[in-house]
């Protein structure tokens, strides 16, 4: 297995929680040899068997570090590593510093994947799951976005950008509503099919309307400012990847960063939080936006896009898109209940969006 390419691995009832195949563990040992660290202990903390990724916490003579096996294409990983380096070395953002290898590289390649070592930030404490915590998260996110501007990836990295893809991703959502309808029709004998078919039209119309609004927005003009003008989205930001450290909020797990209009992270954080609350709360949304705005000012044009992105049936889409995989299992009683909850939550979204819209008008005139 000396030259084996790292691939996803199987787990089953016989493998333990953090099982990683032997050959990958052997690679980990090889990788460590490229660093001027003496490793006292090593503990696996996360695995992504379905993708082929893993994270270890390692205790070294230079303090606690993380060792990561990145599951993405090496050229894609180069983009994220460059970003992490830019954020720490140029912008002094509170993200973990990358520990360079003996040859001065910010990664080591093994098994056809990139591995890297970064500081293990401790202590880190999740912020409270209330409005105060949410505001801290939003402010830190704004800070992160502001500092990520100006990043230029290294020459051989893929340019990971979602900036130009908004119309495409909106279209995709409209298209998939049709898929959901077709599957609902084909699997009429399942418990949730009726619930799905009852609401798919309504959510499809919403997505179409959002697409129209995007088309009529300043989107095309905004994205022409270019990738590095707008900076990076984290894409997986929330209570676990933004945490409080000794001297402020830290942002971790930057492996998925990509260029985008950064408020997409904010939209996800807010709509996800509202889904957790099971209703849209105007105070939360306003204050979260304001907290973000304090760290990374939102122009009226970007605010408009935030509103448009809110108007998509995000939660329905996010929760139902799995239906294509195993419809007969997915369309069960729980999913029927879930759809009901999503519809009820969605009803409370629109008055909030309406009020936010007028707030925007206020911002525009100020």
């Amino acid at each position: 297995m000396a030259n084996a390419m790292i691939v996803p691995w199987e787990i089953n009832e016989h493998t333990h929680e953090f099982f990683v195949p032997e050959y990958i563990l052997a690679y980990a040992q090889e990788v460590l040899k490229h660093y001027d660290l003496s490793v006292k202990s090593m503990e696996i903390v996360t695995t992504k068997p379905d993708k082929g990724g893993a994270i270890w916490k390692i205790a070294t003579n230079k303090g606690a570090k993380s060792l990561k096996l990145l599951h993405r294409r090496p050229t894609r990983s180069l983009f994220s590593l460059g970003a992490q380096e830019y954020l720490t070395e140029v912008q002094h953002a509170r993200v973990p510093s990358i520990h360079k290898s003996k040859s001065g590289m910010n990664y080591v390649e093994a098994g056809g994947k990139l591995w890297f070592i970064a500081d293990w930030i401790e202590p880190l404490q999740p912020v409270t799951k209330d409005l105060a915590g949410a505001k801290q998260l939003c402010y830190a996110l704004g800070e992160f976005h502001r500092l990520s501007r100006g990043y230029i990836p290294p020459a051989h990295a893929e340019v990971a950008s979602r900036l130009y893809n908004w119309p495409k991703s909106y279209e995709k959502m409209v298209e998939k509503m049709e898929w959901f309808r077709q599957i609902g029709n084909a699997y009429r004998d399942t418990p949730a099919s009726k619930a799905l078919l009852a609401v798919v039209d309504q959510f499809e119309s919403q997505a179409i309307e959002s697409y129209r609004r995007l088309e009529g927005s300043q989107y095309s003009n905004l994205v022409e400012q270019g990738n590095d003008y707008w900076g990076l989205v984290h894409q997986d930001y929330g209570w676990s990847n933004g945490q409080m450290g000794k001297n402020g909020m830290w942002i971790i797990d930057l492996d998925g960063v990509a260029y985008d209009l950064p408020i997409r992270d904010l939209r996800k954080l807010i709509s996800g939080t509202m889904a957790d609350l099971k209703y849209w709360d105007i105070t939360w949304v306003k204050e979260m936006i304001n907290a973000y705005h304090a760290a990374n000012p939102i122009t009226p044009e970007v605010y408009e896009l935030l509103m448009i992105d809110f108007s998509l049936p995000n939660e329905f889409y996010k929760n139902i898109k799995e239906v294509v995989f195993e419809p007969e299992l997915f369309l069960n009683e729980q999913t029927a209940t879930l759809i009901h909850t999503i519809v009820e939550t969605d009803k409370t979204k629109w008055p909030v969006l309406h009020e936010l819209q007028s707030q925007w008008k206020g911002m525009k005139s100020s």
Partner: protein
Amino acid sequence: MRILMICTEKLPVPPIRGGAIQTYLSGCLPYLRQEHEITVLGITDPSLPTKETVDDINYVRVDGKIFELYMEGVIQFLQSNDFDLIHIFNRPRLVIPIRQVAPNSKITLSMHNDMFTPDKISAEEGTAVINEVALISTVSNYIGGQIKALYPQAESKVRTIYSGVDCNQFLPGNDPNMQKIRQTLRRKHNLENKTVILFAGRLSSNKGVDRLLRAIPELTKKHKDLALVVVGSNWFSQNNVTDYVAYIRALAKKLPVPVVTTGFVAPSEIQNWFAVADIFVCTSIWQEPLARVHYEAMAAGLPIVTTARGGNPEVMIPGVNGYIVDQPEDPSQFAEKLSLLLSNRMDMKKMGERGRELALSLYQWERVGTDILTFWQDAQESPTSSEKVDYSALLNNRSTERTTNYFQFRPFDTQPTTIETRNEMLTWKASQENSRSLRRTRRNERRKERRREQKSRRRRRNIEIGKRNDR
């Protein structure tokens, strides 16, 4: 002439991992090497050496996958090698950098996709490219038309050279060389006594195989003993399950006819599935340049149902080698055209035979090779501009940013583009949402559906009762 043919950064030559451009290139090489000294520059692959000479053709391979990286390798190679003519596949953005290091070579382009659109190349660079190339060959009139619509000055430089097929590899199922394979595969997959409808292509939503699956229930009302074979993986050699693949699998599972899904089939084996089939369907919804599968289906003697998108209709003679679906978004149109074929088996057979004749007379590699040789000759004889333009400003200004209208980046299109089609669809849908008549139709459909269900439930119950009685 000393000729360099430069492939794209995506897939290696020979086409061990498939690819339309790679297939085109190696299909005509045997004819090209007889006249010229050919070097093929392509990307590295674990299973291929970085340099080799096979059948008098020099292969040089540099690292690829990422365009910028590949371009560096290409330029580096050209800094120490001279050619009379450089033939670039599908990458107009290579032209100017190459011109900088090869000031005296003739440059020709072979275009296989829409690569001159503003999201792919800036107007400034596109203009320079049109100016620097001697000639441009395109795989269809559609692709040529797209270039001319954006750059009218390209008119005199653009000509169509249709791709080809190996008529000895792709043979009708009743050919002595194929009969046994046809029988074996049919037996293995329980397709005996079935009329087999074949789709072969990437499993992605723009290729639209879902519309074919959705057409089947309607089709089975009139035609018995149908079966579907779906050949192809979502992206060349990788068998990943994307959302789309999952979606079509979910649809296939509920169909009233057998569906054989093969996953990735090596390019060297694919003719076997064409020999198994009785009808070929191309379901493309996007403006496709001109899918190779049409040539393969014709060579295999299959009647074709394809779509009025991009260059696909250019190889069709409706009613002679098959039919064209005008609105591929609509599954019922596939049902209609397929039904037309299935209703008259004599005509269906004849259309397949006509397809084979067309492939033999128009679409063999030898014809492609001859066309390219003439094309190069003309390129060589074309006047050379004595004026050398300094492109350093243009090249230094190379940015990864793209400026375009992201919603309608092909406003010049005569046929609806994918995005415009989408807009039309959205408008249509929205208007339909409000229309009472639609709701009525839907209600009726639901009623019918319910009746059908009751009927089948009754039938199932009867069967159950029958079984019980048997015991």
